[in-house]
């Protein structure tokens, strides 16, 4: 369980993303139509984009506080990032990709990652020969080997064909439960969000339109239908902490 403490605005030309989430969770799912700002939210947490205002903290570790002039450099953030296209280093083989991080401090043992993500037969392969699902698993291992405090995943199932999706979902559950690394991931698939996430955030056009427990949140949106920005936010209450989502103005 990690405390996600986000309240920031990201401005990019015409587009603005207002992202306000305060919740204790093991996995957050960001859900919404293309161009709604999901990837931008992940990249802001990773430090690849700088918000114009606000604060970002994960488990009490402050990453950004614009007012206090805090902006932890990307390489010191310990936010593992797995982009949708994985961006495995094409000149390195799988083993050298996975073990790229040289960071001091706690991180999972390589053999634990190899077992969890079923990488043993892949370790000496060139990344160009991997399938979509294999690339995802390698990219997850590479990010996890850097000992992140949170793992950010951008549509980990997008490039994976249907029969192999189960394997990725199991990997996500393993990362969440065995390794205890909290997740924030972007998805288009409600069933994936229901299996892995314990908090769902629905974004449309740069605004959080609803947040809450995944099932209730999706149900309130009419059986997982495409998001409609006119839908009213759902209220959700949890005993341990007064999570709230606000419709950002």
């Amino acid at each position, binding site marked *: 369980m990690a405390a996600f403490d986000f309240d920031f605005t990201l401005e990019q030309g015409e587009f603005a993303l207002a992202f306000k989430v305060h919740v204790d969770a093991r996995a957050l799912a960001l859900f919404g139509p293309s161009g709604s700002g999901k990837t931008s939210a992940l990249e802001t947490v990773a430090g690849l984009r700088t918000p114009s205002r606000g604060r970002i903290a994960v488990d009490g570790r402050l990453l950004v506080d614009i007012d206090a002039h805090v902006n932890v450099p*990307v390489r010191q953030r310990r936010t593992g990032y797995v982009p949708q296209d994985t*961006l495995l280093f094409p000149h390195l083989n799988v083993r050298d990709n996975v073990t790229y991080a040289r960071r001091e401090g706690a991180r999972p043992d390589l053999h634990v990652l190899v077992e969890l993500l079923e990488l043993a037969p892949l370790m000496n392969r060139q990344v160009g020969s991997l399938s979509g699902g294999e690339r995802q698993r390698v990219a997850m291992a590479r*990010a996890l080997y850097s000992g992140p405090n949170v793992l950010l995943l951008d549509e980990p199932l997008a490039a994976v064909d249907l029969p192999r999706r189960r394997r990725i979902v199991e990997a996500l559950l393993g990362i969440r439960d065995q390794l205890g690394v909290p997740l924030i991931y972007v998805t288009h698939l409600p069933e994936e969000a229901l299996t892995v996430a314990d908090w769902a955030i629905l974004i449309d056009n740069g605004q959080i339109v609803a947040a809450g427990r995944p099932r209730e949140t999706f149900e309130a949106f009419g059986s997982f239908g495409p998001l409609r920005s006119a839908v009213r936010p759902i209220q959700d209450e949890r005993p341990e902490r007064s999570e709230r989502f606000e419709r950002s103005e």
Partner: protein
Amino acid sequence: MTAEIRDIAIFTTFAALAATAVMLVPGVAVAWLLARRDFPGKSLVETLVSLPLVMPPVATGLLLLWLFSRRGPLGALLARVGIDIVFTPAAVVMAMAVMGLPLLVRTARAGFEQVTRRYEQIAETLGAGPWRVFSTVTLPLAARNILAGAVLGFSRALGEFGATIVVAGSIPGRTRTLAVGIYSFTESGQDEQAAVLLAISVTIAFAAVLASNRLARSV
């Protein structure tokens, strides 16, 4: 083949290799700066680096002669510590490096521009500092272009004539290169010698292109 011809071939090859080595580090550094950074005077640097491509080589040679002669601004400084460049083998290497540099910089710059910034960003998220990002991600991904640029620079150095003859002359056994030698032998009616140098030039150029193609495939 006479000893003189053999020495010219060996000297030219080594001078061109030395020129390539001399231009490699500053050339790659300038290419990276131009591809990745904005800084005051960037367009001036761009222009200066490309100048030898556009200027007549003889004019570049004259400029170098003026800069590095004993009374020139840089030559005077070097003379004070006992270094004399003009009309020495070092002048050959310098002329070759100056003429080859633009080709290296342009090709390497295109290579750096082709490396998507996102690979570098991913390396940063994995904790890599600027030098590690450059040496383990940017440089290897741009290696093919840098190599191609180095081969182009080497080839340019090998055939350099105009700047070399002005700043280094054509001193037999000291500064005479293949290109300068062909000219000098033809001028003095030694056509046979010139023809041998021509054949050597073709052979070295052929080998260089072949080697670069093979290297490019292996990178």
